[in-house]
């Protein structure tokens, strides 16, 4: 099924889409999704990811650009002729049909004579046989995700477009769904385009990543390249870096070896201090002292907020070895080779 498919978006642009009461243009987006790969559209909420996906699926008009499947333009076709399996965030299961009839729905529409048998294949594949006679409201959210997936695949889509596949799932169901999606990418060869606001979903699945912010593409490339991409404030925040300073903050900070090192490592947009660039030791009288502003426990260890003048540093410490309390003074050590300069822009 679907071997060797290629979905190519060229110059795809949506005009004047209203997201969270803000009007902006989305795109232009150029993107190629191949069989056996997953592309993840990543961005904070309100970035225009869902609108872009709905534009590709045919539910919003494109201002310009082309959507080609194996070389055939589909951007003017209605949604039902594009051959994409579009799964909305709420899944869009039919509440008045049982699981079995939800899965066979696309086959029933085509009047497929072997609809039941073909639906059964996907029911078995996703381990839904015991639930086949239930209605969607009688299922857990993880089970509903599997039904949506089975139904989308029963339609033999040319590509699967899924908006927030892991939303509202508990940890265990997330793992099951991620495994199923990975299997799908590898065994069925269906190009996958997923939308998510959660970078960890992207890291778990994506071959390629497109990061959107307010409709603009901020990064596009292989997942492996994402950590090495030039960082601006938005990307740094989005990727989870907590300690970053603007040139203005560094300018107002009191001079000392630490601040000088930060200024030297800074780019036009400031500097990011990754977690592993920072270490604390017992306070020795002198420079580079910081006081502990907050201590937070997490299952993976302690998160420390350390303040030095106007600068706040965040770092993590293993779960068992913390002797610090709020108000203590520590000395900060910086591995300057690990600092990441920020390029300009990226106001958020």
């Amino acid at each position, binding site marked *: 099924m679907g071997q060797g498919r290629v979905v190519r978006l060229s110059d795809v642009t949506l005009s004047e889409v209203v997201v969270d009461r803000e009007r902006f243009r989305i795109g232009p987006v150029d993107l190629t999704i191949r069989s056996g790969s997953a592309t993840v559209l990543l961005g904070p909420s309100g970035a225009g990811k869902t609108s872009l996906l709905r534009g590709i699926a045919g539910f919003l008009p494109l201002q310009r650009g082309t959507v080609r499947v194996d070389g055939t333009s589909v951007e003017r076709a209605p949604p039902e002729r594009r051959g*994409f399996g579009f799964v909305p965030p709420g899944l869009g299961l*039919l509440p008045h049909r049982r699981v079995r009839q939800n899965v066979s729905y696309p086959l029933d529409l085509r009047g497929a004579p072997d609809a039941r048998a073909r639906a059964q294949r996907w029911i078995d594949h996703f381990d839904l046989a015991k639930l086949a006679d239930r209605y969607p409201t009688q299922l857990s959210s993880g089970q509903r995700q599997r039904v949506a997936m089975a139904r989308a695949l029963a339609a033999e889509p040319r590509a699967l477009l899924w908006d927030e596949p892991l939303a509202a799932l508990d940890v265990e169901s997330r793992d099951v769904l991620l495994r199923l999606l990975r299997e799908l990418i590898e065994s069925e060869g269906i190009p996958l385009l997923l939308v998510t606001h959660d970078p960890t979903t992207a890291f778990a699945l994506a071959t390629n990543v497109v990061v959107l912010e307010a409709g603009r593409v901020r990064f596009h490339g292989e997942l492996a390249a994402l950590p090495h991409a030039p960082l601006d404030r938005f990307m740094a925040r989005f990727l989870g870096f907590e300690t970053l300073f603007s040139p203005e903050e560094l300018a107002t900070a009191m001079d000392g070896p630490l601040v000088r090192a930060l200024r030297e490592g800074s780019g036009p947009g400031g500097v990011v201090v990754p977690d592993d660039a920072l270490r604390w030791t017992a306070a020795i009288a002198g420079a580079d002292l910081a006081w502990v502003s907050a201590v937070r426990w997490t299952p993976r260890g302690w998160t420390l907020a350390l303040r030095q003048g106007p600068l706040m540093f965040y770092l993590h410490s293993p779960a068992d070895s913390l002797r610090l309390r709020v108000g203590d003074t520590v000395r900060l050590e910086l591995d300057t080779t690990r600092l990441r300069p920020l390029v300009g822009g990226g106001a958020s």
Partner: protein
Amino acid sequence: MVSDAVADHAAPVRRAVAAVLSASLIGLFILPIVALFLYAGYGQIANAAGNAGFLNALYFTLLASGIAVAFGILLGVPLGYVLARYRFPGRSIVESIVLIPVMIPHLIVGIALLVLFAPTNPFGAWVAGIGIPIFDAIWGVVLVMVYVGASYVVLTSELAFRTVDGEAIEAARSLGASPTEAFATVTLPQAFRGIVTGSLLMWARGVSEIGGFLILAYAIYPSFPYGGPVTNTASVYIYNLYSTAGVQAAAGASALLVLVALAVFVAVRVLDRTGMAWAKVGWFA
């Protein structure tokens, strides 16, 4: 009983107050009907059931109300859909217009329709000219029933269409359904119950109408599709019984009409459930 009550020492008092108030209203709904049946007794109900004139009026009322509900669905469901789905200039005005028949006294509906359809004005003359008898004919009854009842179909189907899951429609489209197929297989089955409820309300409203009939169609002369003897609607017939033969005769016929209405109500509810079951196995697909 309330099962989701949290620990709250005032809860028993609140529950008791709510129970007394609710029971009062339920009592007000039920007691007059019980009194009616007790007063009429088996004898008067049997009399009414053996009264050929009343049975004919009942048959006529069911025929006219059936036709009226068909028109109500035909015209009301699309309007409910439009109001639920589209934003357009003047939408709130249209919504207000839909409420007019519910707001104005129905005797006035009769007078207004009388004025509009009078053959002395061009519109009335045109309707009479194309051969649709309104006055003292079934079509006058149907007209009044549609006027006073179709709003219920519009309002309940609008509400039903509003609650249909938009994502399910988009998912269906993407799975290969044309807009018409998506409407038939996703929207309609989900709105079905609301449309049935609206139709039932419209039917009940039409059968209980009297003011409009008194003005527009007091006596019904045969015209297609009603071919029986001269008759009245059941409500007008009961009113005549009340003013000529007394309360007891009217009570017997009234009780019989209540029984018929209840039977229709139950039958529609059962059909509705069956219909939903059919929808679930792909009746609409």
